[in-house]
């Protein structure tokens, strides 16, 4: 039979193809000085000053780009391109003394004019900086000499040094700024090598770096969106470290495997159940309190996050010095919730719409919360939405929602409760005055006290139901040291990573 011959040839070809793959075990290809970091999302481009996507900072922050200051693993402000600074008595003038001998990756020197250019570019009318508000306080930038930058503020701002440490405030050069999206040129210890779109971004050590030489000479950021594919890639040895693994359910498996280390840290992500206070229903604080009492945070953390996450009672990160534990304010109490609803005239039950964006904290958490609300007579209809739709319908425009679940991942973002027209629809005069006082406070102890007061105000008011702080859970190959455990900002700093 002629056909069975074809079949045999085909089969043999297939086997040959498979054998071709036999060459080497993938996991043995790893060499000293190489690091492969797994990330969930591909950056849309590589310019941190022109986009909000955390995926950009997760590749370039501290590695490729640097600012005047930087934020370290513990969320503290450290000197970066500015070696030191003086602040005038009135807190209005900042004199930054720049490090000398700093070079951009294209070989040009970094001077005060580059700093002035970067700040002016970010605050210009046609600026597309996603955090333009960081630069709002700046009145003027002067450059008395190449190593000094004088920044005058419109009003004192206790957070200014912190703000200059954001990825959105990195220093870029006028010659290369426009091409940074695809050919980023910074001053960091790593320079851009290549970007295989959809697959990986590769950085190489920059030999002209001013500071300590990193231990790795090549770092590849590999993009793997699917959580189960992340686990498989880790197990197959394709990846050395996944700083934030999308599949918390599989962490146990890595803990039991001697080839890997699991690390659990904190992030700046306050996960909250937002109540649309533009709705008359939620203007009644009894209803908001009833919902707070109806929810069992620990059940949400266990059920939706496999136990990873810290309960919060206000909009503040528990690892912060200024944190006040307010989780006991509205304990889980169904009886209380029912009687509050009764009191507010909703004894017959309420029908609500709960809109859930794609992340699993929202989708899984939403199911559990809907079930908890049902127990006190609130029927929440779950409507899954994609991000674009969430931004359009919930965050902006007509705010078409009753409830939604979202994690606010920007650091120190309690000020969102005082933003005009914000989607919460919440307003508090006492909070406004605390936030104004904060701007003038430069002393840490004073600031912490004010932050404490702000946390209490929104917790008492049940401005939202505060659920939990998102955990950062990662896996790495044993022997890798120097990666961040926590994420005070969204970054994967590999400058200190080393094999031991």
């Amino acid at each position: 039979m002629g056909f069975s011959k074809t079949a045999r040839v085909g089969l043999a070809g297939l086997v040959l193809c498979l054998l071709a793959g036999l060459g080497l075990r993938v996991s043995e290809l790893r060499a000293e000085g190489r690091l492969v970091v797994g990330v969930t999302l591909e950056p849309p481009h590589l310019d941190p000053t022109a986009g909000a996507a955390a995926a950009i900072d997760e590749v370039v922050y501290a590695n490729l780009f640097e600012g005047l200051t930087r934020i370290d693993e513990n969320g503290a402000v450290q000197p970066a391109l500015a070696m030191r600074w003086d602040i005038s008595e009135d807190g209005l003038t900042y004199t930054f003394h720049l490090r000398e001998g700093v070079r951009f990756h294209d070989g040009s020197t970094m001077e005060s004019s580059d700093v002035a250019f970067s700040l002016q570019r970010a605050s210009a009318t046609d600026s597309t900086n996603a955090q333009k508000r960081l630069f709002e306080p700046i009145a003027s930038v002067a450059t008395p000499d190449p190593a000094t930058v004088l920044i005058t503020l419109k009003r004192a701002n206790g957070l200014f040094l912190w703000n200059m440490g954001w990825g959105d405030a990195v220093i870029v050069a006028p010659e290369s700024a426009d091409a940074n999206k695809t050919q980023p040129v910074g001053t960091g210890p790593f320079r851009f090598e290549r970007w295989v779109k959809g697959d990986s971004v590769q950085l190489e050590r920059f030999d002209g770096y001013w500071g300590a030489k990193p231990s790795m000479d090549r770092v590849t950021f590999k993009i793997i969106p699917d959580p189960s594919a992340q686990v498989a890639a880790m197990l197959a040895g394709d990846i050395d470290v996944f700083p934030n693994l999308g599949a918390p359910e599989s962490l146990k498996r890595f803990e039991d495997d001697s080839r890997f280390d699991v690390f659990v840290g904190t992030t700046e992500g306050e996960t909250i159940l937002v109540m649309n206070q533009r709705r008359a229903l939620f203007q009644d604080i009894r209803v908001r309190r009833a919902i707070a009492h109806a929810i069992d945070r620990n059940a949400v953390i266990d059920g939706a996050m496999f136990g990873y996450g810290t309960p919060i009672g206000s909009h503040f990160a528990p690892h912060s010095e200024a944190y006040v534990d307010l989780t006991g304010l509205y304990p889980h109490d169904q009886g209380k919730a029912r009687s509050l609803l009764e009191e507010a005239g909703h004894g017959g039950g309420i029908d609500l719409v709960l809109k859930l964006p794609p992340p699993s904290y929202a989708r899984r958490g939403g199911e559990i919360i809907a079930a908890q609300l049902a127990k006190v007579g609130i029927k929440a209809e779950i409507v899954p939405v994609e991000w674009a739709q969430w931004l359009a319908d919930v965050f902006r425009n007509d705010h078409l929602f009753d409830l939604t679940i979202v994690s606010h991942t920007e650091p120190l973002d309690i000020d969102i409760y005082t933003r005009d027209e914000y989607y919460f629809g919440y307003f508090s005069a006492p909070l406004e005055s605390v936030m104004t006082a904060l701007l003038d406070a430069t002393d840490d102890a004073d600031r912490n006290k004010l932050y404490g007061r702000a946390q209490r105000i929104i917790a008492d008011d049940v401005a939202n139901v505060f659920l939990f702080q998102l955990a950062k859970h990662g896996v790495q190959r044993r022997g890798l040291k120097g990666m961040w455990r926590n994420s005070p900002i969204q970054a994967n700093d590999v400058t200190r990573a080393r094999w031991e």
Partner: protein
Amino acid sequence: MLTFFARRVAALFLTLLAASAVVFVVLEVLPGDVAQIMLGTGAQEDTLAALRTQLGLDRPAAERYIRWLAGLVSGDLGTSYTYDVPVAELVRDRLSVTIPLALLAFIISALVALPAGMFAAQHHNRLGDWGVMATSQLALAIPNFWFAILLILVFSVALGWLPAGGFPGWSEGIGQAIRSLLLPSLALALGEAAILARVTRGAILDTLGEDFIRTARAKGLGTTEIMRRHVLRNAFIPIATILGLQFAFLVAGAVIVENVFHLPGLGRLLVQAVHQRDLFVVRDVAVLLAGLVIVVNFMVDGVYALIDPRPRIEL
């Protein structure tokens, strides 16, 4: 033959025009603002407005549609909002993964399915037939993403022979590139092969029942000769139809497998672009895929004509 060709080309353009209009309108109606998506929840109003102006989103919809069409005709596919690179470049990069992947899956599928189908038909209602039918039933029932995970567990995690996913790019050498496409193409080929084997078997059985086969037998031709000269040629029309559909599907529909193996293919680009409202990318890719399906169908029709002269008269 000439009118046949001219009609086809006219149909191609009309279909593409219709597709472009549908895609444009759907994306206009869909909620979501690309500027907000790019700049996030911390962005100020003036920044959003500046970006919209920069992207040309402040122009009226009709103007943007006409500009886009004019661009397409002149070969300018526009610039991706999110990536800020020409869409043509983006699509070309993605096709350099998707086309080889689809071809490889297509070849594997055809190499396995055609002989299997013929074998089953020749052993009709005997053990061999049941074997092929049962196997293909099983292959059809297995979802390809599950089979993909199984392949990864066996060949990447347990044996460590092949990478669990990703695509290093053709610049890393053909060997490396093929290695990373092997498991995905196997995963893709499974379901396609099962369908193809069943269609092949059915088509051959139908042909074997025809009078002219009995005549051929009566004439004293051997089994091989009958197969080659009479059965295959006739059975190939439904097979070619399925092959054409499958190829179009492999290019456009590999998105799930691309996700499991995190391959930077066209399907994933499209899904990502829809999420990010990267309008130019979505529109261009959608029109490109529509064009591809039409071209493949066109080629299949051409193949019919080669195999069997009759359709030409009907057209």
